[in-house]
């Protein structure tokens, strides 16, 4: 399964989407998931396009603009799930991440919460297969 974060550079939620993806692909579900660079889809990298078309994809977007979801859809990827960090924030209102370049403590905690959501979605999709 391919987990694709937006990695938006201007907002803390973009950094959180990226870190949550690493938490899943390097730790929580490292046997069943991997990530790839969103920009490669748009630049037409054939290997990346093949990966997203042949595997189920979960996008992780920092904000409601949902750039990762839009770009995966445009690339013809098999979009099986979309996680928005802002929705996880709504369930964790006490967390106020400030750091964008480097995540602060609240940012790391939010990344773990987002990673949990991604992992649950991965499990759901695997059960369906």
């Amino acid at each position, binding site marked *: 399964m391919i987990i*694709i*974060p*937006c*990695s*938006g*550079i*201007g907002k803390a939620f*973009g950094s959180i989407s*990226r*870190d949550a*993806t*690493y938490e899943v692909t*390097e730790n929580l579900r490292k046997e069943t998931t991997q*990530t*790839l*660079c*969103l*920009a*490669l889809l*748009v*630049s037409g*990298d054939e290997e990346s396009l093949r990966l997203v078309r042949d595997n189920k994809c979960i996008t992780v977007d920092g904000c409601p*603009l949902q*750039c*990762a979801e*839009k*770009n995966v859809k445009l690339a013809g990827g098999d979009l099986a799930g979309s996680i928005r960090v802002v929705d996880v924030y709504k369930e964790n209102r006490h967390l106020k991440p400030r750091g*964008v*370049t*480097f995540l602060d403590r609240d940012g790391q905690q939010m990344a773990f919460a987002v990673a949990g959501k991604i992992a649950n979605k991965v499990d759901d999709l695997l059960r369906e297969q």
Partner: protein
Amino acid sequence: MTERPEKKVGIISCSGEECVEGTISRVATRLVLGKLRPNETVTICLPLFLAGGREEREFARDYPTVTVDGCDKMCAKVATERYSGKPASSLVVTDLTKGWQCPKLGSRRKLNDETLTVTRKVSDRIAEEVDEVLRHWV
């Protein structure tokens, strides 16, 4: 080109999730934006740029840009050329590190001390490119 009152340079970094050089590119860009050249630079969010973000594309069309890519696939440069115009300058982290004889770079997720040192060198290099672009501003 639309008239713009201020001298600004747009920096477009790759998102580079797959490799440590992508993270270096991202962090180095943010260091330039936040510390080294905060008044002279604007960062363009690449995923938003790719998804059609109007403000991002118009800025990159009307102002000079510096692209910063982690690897030789050069996604930021390719996207900028496709959607807005040729960048004024392009840097590739793997090219820079080859010339510097860097230690083995660590995790793409959490930059260790050695990688942070390399990141700061990259940010200095980006700042030099920004200065060069501003020197030639017409």
